[in-house]
């Protein structure tokens, strides 16, 4: 679960990590009010969960409250990289002397958390890693011992900080680790960490991703989750409620399968044969008829979908149950959207029989089935 900048900064405040003074606004009026109460130049920052927000015009500055009104009106309701801006963060504008980078994330190969520091902040850290690898300081965190203050100091020292700056930045890096531990974060990042002209060290931005699998021990995020759900479309919301992994795409061929790898491969086959998938939907292992029914309902409620390709490989999953779910959903929705089903594995014969009795053709090969689905979508597009 990704948190918005302002949510992450609220958590930073709990840990006494210095962040700019500021508040969140959902209307231009509120934005102006905040700016007035601060009576100094401010930054107005669109709250969206996409990278490169700055370059896309999502961060703008204002010296007078009138300008804040103008910027907030423009940002609120606009789209940044396709995502609607519903909130802006109005913050004091920092007088920047230096921009640094601090972050902690998971390194899959090392199977450890890794702390990363760089004296080149304020730019894409992956670019720095490619172009100036010597400017990236990494420290793999011992899974049993954790991250220690002295390790933070060693890293910050390597960034070239000294004196008070060293103490302050190391302290912040330490606190990032506490946040990772306390909140099960997958990523926590400050880019840039700003040294201001008056000598303060402040987290100008804040990125925080919480491990979805750990949310069961973080009831404090219930509200955030709810607000996140408000941003889903109808189909995504329904999938999320039913616990189905559903991602909507731009094409016209609905895809349902069991198992993430198989569904991804199904999308790939469809693309390979020149088709465009409308979605990714994984019913998961050992699904029952109701699950398949819900999956088909969700996919079919997408008006762009011209044909649905269902790819079932029965292992734990029973083909007969999947077939039942398909029939029931079709009867309920009374759809005329053609279905292409590929079904092999556990209770394959029973499943095929159910589908064939209902007039649905079943194929054995996923490649053939993909080809068929693409053909149908093209015919329908041409008609």
């Amino acid at each position, binding site marked *: 679960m990704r948190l918005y900048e302002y949510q992450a900064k609220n958590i930073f405040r709990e840990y006494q990590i210095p962040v700019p003074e500021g508040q969140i606004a959902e209307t231009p009026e509120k934005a102006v009010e905040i700016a007035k109460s601060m009576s100094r130049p401010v930054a107005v920052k669109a709250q969206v969960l996409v990278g490169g927000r700055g370059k896309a015009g999502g961060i703008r500055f204002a010296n007078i409250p009138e300008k804040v009104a103008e910027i907030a009106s423009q940002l609120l309701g606009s789209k940044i990289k396709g995502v609607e801006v519903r909130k802006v963060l109005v913050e004091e504008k920092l007088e920047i002397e230096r921009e640094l980078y601090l972050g902690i994330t998971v390194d899959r*190969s090392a199977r450890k958390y890794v702390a990363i520091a760089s004296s080149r902040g304020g730019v894409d850290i992956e670019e720095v890693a490619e172009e100036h690898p010597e400017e990236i300081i990494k420290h793999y965190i011992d899974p049993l011992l954790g991250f220690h203050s002295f390790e933070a100091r060693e890293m910050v020292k390597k960034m070239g900080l000294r004196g008070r700056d060293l103490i302050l930045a190391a302290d912040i890096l330490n606190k990032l680790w506490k946040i990772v*531990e306390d909140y099960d974060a997958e990523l926590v990042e400050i880019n840039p960490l700003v040294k201001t002209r008056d000598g303060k060290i402040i987290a100008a931005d804040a990125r925080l991703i919480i491990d979805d699998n*750990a949310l069961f021990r973080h009831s404090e995020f219930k509200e955030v989750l709810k607000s996140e759900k408000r941003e889903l479309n109808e189909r995504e919301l329904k999938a999320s409620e039913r616990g189905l992994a559903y991602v909507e795409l731009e094409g016209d061929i609905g895809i349902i399968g069991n198992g993430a790898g198989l*569904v*991804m491969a199904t999308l790939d086959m469809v693309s390979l044969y020149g088709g465009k998938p409308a979605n*990714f939907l994984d019913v998961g292992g050992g699904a029952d008829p109701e699950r398949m029914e819900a999956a088909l309902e969700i996919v079919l409620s997408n008006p762009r979908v011209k044909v649905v390709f269902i790819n079932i490989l*029965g292992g734990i999953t029973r083909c007969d149950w999947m077939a039942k779910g398909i029939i029931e959903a079709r009867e309920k929705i009374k759809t005329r959207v053609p279905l292409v089903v590929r079904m092999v594995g556990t209770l394959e014969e029973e499943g095929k029989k159910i589908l064939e009795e209902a007039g649905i053709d079943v194929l054995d090969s996923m490649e053939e089935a993909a080809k068929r689905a693409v053909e149908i979508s093209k015919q329908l597009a041409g008609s």
Partner: protein
Amino acid sequence: MAILVNNKTKAIVQGITGTQGSFHTKLMLEYGTKIVAGVTPGKGGQEVHGVPVYDTVKEALSEHDANASIIFVPAPFAKDAVLEGINAGLELIVVITEHIPIKDTIQMVEVAKRNNVNIVGPNTPGVITPGECKLGIMPGHIFKRGPIGIISRSGTLTYEIASNLTKAGFGQSTCLGIGGDPIIGINFVEALEMFANDHETKAVVLIGEIGGDAEEKAAEYIRKEFNKPVTAFIAGKTAPPGKRMGHAGAIISGRTGTAQSKVKALKDAGVHVVDRPREISEKLKEILS
């Protein structure tokens, strides 16, 4: 030969009294796997499909000889179950459980490493050496014994490919699901090392997917050290960046972890990367003939 499991493997099932644990215990027993005991705290004294249940792993091992475990306990308790298995002296632990917090996995994988315990998974279908031992949830009948080693991050996609191979006459030495999570126990490189030392295995099939750099690391290892032929399929070529595709692992962020990057790395290492799953057996025919 084969790797990890064979007819000498004696396993316990942790979380045996749950729906999944009980169901798959039955299937594993039917396959011929030696399941000697089950563990569910508070349920000691019961039986599941004739397998005696104990409250703790230590207790189970005091009554039965076992060297492996398969874990079905719910995610919040999975780390504890793994640590219990390690502490009791098991050599191999297969973690079927999905949705384990990454912090927990990092810790349990580290403790396993320090104790020389092999972890398969989490979020894995398990491992099977056809005809000898199935420690997992894969449908047993699609596998046949033979010279092909399979290593995969996926579940059903593996069944797809294994089933194709079996139909095409290519049996398997061992088929290992390494798990779909970002952090896992045995990874591609370690599994390749095992197959390198397994005389029975003549060729390896590698089934990868987007996210992370495990395939790139595998490519590097293959280029430098691995001498058996490798065929590969990478899922997720058409997945849009920044979206999670089911698996916790199947997410692409930025320019790293794309299917393109993985395919290129593998091809550069001399791996036969195919576009369609069914082409794997065709490629193997070329290679092994």
